[in-house]
């Protein structure tokens, strides 16, 4: 073989264009978040809790708008007023679910008990609907480069996958749980959009199951010491199988990073009696977001604006049921 044939592959490698890398950064400060938190606390206190939806919006606005994706900041367009209206709707649903059985119990205790049980099942069914709707609301109120994110309608389908996961996990003594959770995540991700362009998820069930099974087993054997490594691997798995157009997600978070965040969170909170929480949150967000990137080509010209969809009631319901997701 001649010399030219030896060096040709190297030359081809050097000439390949670099893969575009979209980096994520959190630019907020502990002081800024503390200001938002203490102002919210005061106004919520003075208004006996009525300010709470506006407080939630202010907090989200601060967190969201300090996230930079590829040098551009996210924008949050949700309002306290729409959360407040959602809150009133949820209060009405709660009033019916808890008030009606109480009234029926006064007339007939057995009928009241039956209605109470039915109400309990109704709340269980509301959980996945709240998770889906809350995510839909938050995505539709978030924009990047002037174009909103979104999530297609599909709460009924999500409820179906949720119930299948619940039932099969119960029957299989939890062995099905990682697979079911993977399906739920795939359902949510594949219905999420940035403008007109959908996200995709290609994490396999077998890999998800292996990560959870090995992670939980090692966490138990090591009395929890391994748990942060499991958390990091699980998060890496999810992000690395998330795709948008030609770009694939990447998370460089390690178990050591998670350990550091946990230690700072636990000891910082204890020794500051909770006052340092905004600074700890800022530290955690900075560490995690700095490890996230999307590698590959994104054609922004193809990302077209879509109408805003999704009401705030599901977000309030998720908050009431304590199943909400946050940044």
């Amino acid at each position, binding site marked *: 073989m001649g010399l030219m044939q030896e060096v040709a592959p190297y030359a081809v490698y050097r000439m390949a264009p670099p893969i575009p890398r979209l980096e994520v950064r959190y630019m907020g400060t502990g002081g800024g978040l503390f200001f938002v938190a203490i102002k919210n606390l005061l106004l919520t206190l003075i208004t006996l809790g009525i300010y709470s939806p506006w407080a939630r919006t202010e907090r989200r606005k601060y967190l969201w*708008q300090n996230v930079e994706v590829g040098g551009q900041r996210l924008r949050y367009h949700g309002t306290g007023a729409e959360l407040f209206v959602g809150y009133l709707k949820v209060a009405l649903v709660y009033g019916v679910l808890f008030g009606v059985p109480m009234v029926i119990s006064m007339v007939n205790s057995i009928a009241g008990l039956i209605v109470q049980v039915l109400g309990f099942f109704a709340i269980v069914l509301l959980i996945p609907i709240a998770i889906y709707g809350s995510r839909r609301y938050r995505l539709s109120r978030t924009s990047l480069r002037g174009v909103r994110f979104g999530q297609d309608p599909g709460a009924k389908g999500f409820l179906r996958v949720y119930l299948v996961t619940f039932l099969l996990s119960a029957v299989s003594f939890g062995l099905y749980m990682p697979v079911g959770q993977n399906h739920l995540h795939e359902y949510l991700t594949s219905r999420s959009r940035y403008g007109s362009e959908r996200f995709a998820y290609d994490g396999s069930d077998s890999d998800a199951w292996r990560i959870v099974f090995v992670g939980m087993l090692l966490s138990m054997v090591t009395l929890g010491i391994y748990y942060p490594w499991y958390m990091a691997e699980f998060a890496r798995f999810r992000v690395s199988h998330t795709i948008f157009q030609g770009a694939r997600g990447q998370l460089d978070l390690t178990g050591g990073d998670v350990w550091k965040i946990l230690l700072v969170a636990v000891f910082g909170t204890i020794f500051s009696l909770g006052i340092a929480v905004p600074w700890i949150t800022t530290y955690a967000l900075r560490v995690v977001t700095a490890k996230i990137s999307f590698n590959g080509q994104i054609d922004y010209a193809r990302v077209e604006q879509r109408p805003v969809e999704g009401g705030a009631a599901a977000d309030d319901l998720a908050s009431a049921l304590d199943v909400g997701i946050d940044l």
Partner: protein
Amino acid sequence: MSESTSDVARASGEWAGGEVAALVPVHLEMRDGCLLVVSTDGVTTFARWPIATLRLDAMHEGSLAHIESSSDPGRAATTVDDAFLAALRAAGARRAGLPVRRRGALALACAAAVVAIFGGLYAVAPWVSRAIAQRVPLDVERRLQPRFAGLFESRTCRTPGAQAALVVLRDRLDPTGSIHADVRVVNLDVPNAFALPGGTVLLTRALVEGAESGEEVAGVLAHEMAHVRHRHVLAELIQDTFMSSVWAATMGDYSSLLVVDPRTLEHLIELRQSRDVEAEADRTGLAMLADARVSPAGLAAFLERNGFAGGDGELTFLSTHPSTANRLQVIRSAPVVEGPPVLTPGQLDALRKACAGEPEIRSLRDLFH
């Protein structure tokens, strides 16, 4: 970089038109009271916004700022040019949020106000809740807590002799019957006494069986009847309900973020208030004993023997009651007014045998079986 002439300021930036996510490089020009957003080749004018309608949103100095107009929602120009942004502000554009320097001062003021409001609430809550409790009729209070009565009803020891002795004790301490205490012996193997909602006072089997004199039982009973007289139980329920509602309404969004329960401080304040309430019950109980001409030595002897509710050499601030040493000091300094014995030997014996023949209940859990 921004350039400026006498009436024109310029900067470079990007245009997010809101139709697609691709950004267009633009020149931003402030001219004739308006912001012009013009393509870099000068051919296309994307927006002409009156400066009075502008809102500048820069999270930090030097960070990417969004410029939006209330007259044209959904579209924005961005720039990192602080000098240009300052010129827009000087010309009347609104900035979103406060400057960092003012934020710090306002945060401190907010923190001080929050501490003052919570401090004020904790200072006022005991007085208000007690005033409300005093106005609630006792039979209404009994209806509020029917489960307590039902729970102890089946475990109450009711021999005729013991019942008669309890009536003698109660009438000696409250001859006018103004306190309306319902005194019972409950089958529980722990030497203690409780005041429940609705004026029910429970003396435990272990307490009456171990009593060396009627004065010991009378001393403990006076303390519990003082709780009933001051309506301490209902006042505590009212205060706890009110403060819990305030905490839930204000801290609901944040408590999940905290590793430490944010109500730890509240629990410490409540313990302090509980010690104050117990001290008040001691003082009122001693006054009742003096009025009834019963020696407080019995109460002192009982506390010494049982080391009631601890606190000695321990962390007093974590205790619901004042330390036994402090309580004994108060009791021993009370005036001693000797009268006839509160119970005859026969009555004391009947009281001690109130639960004779009943199976012993060693813990509260046994009450449910």
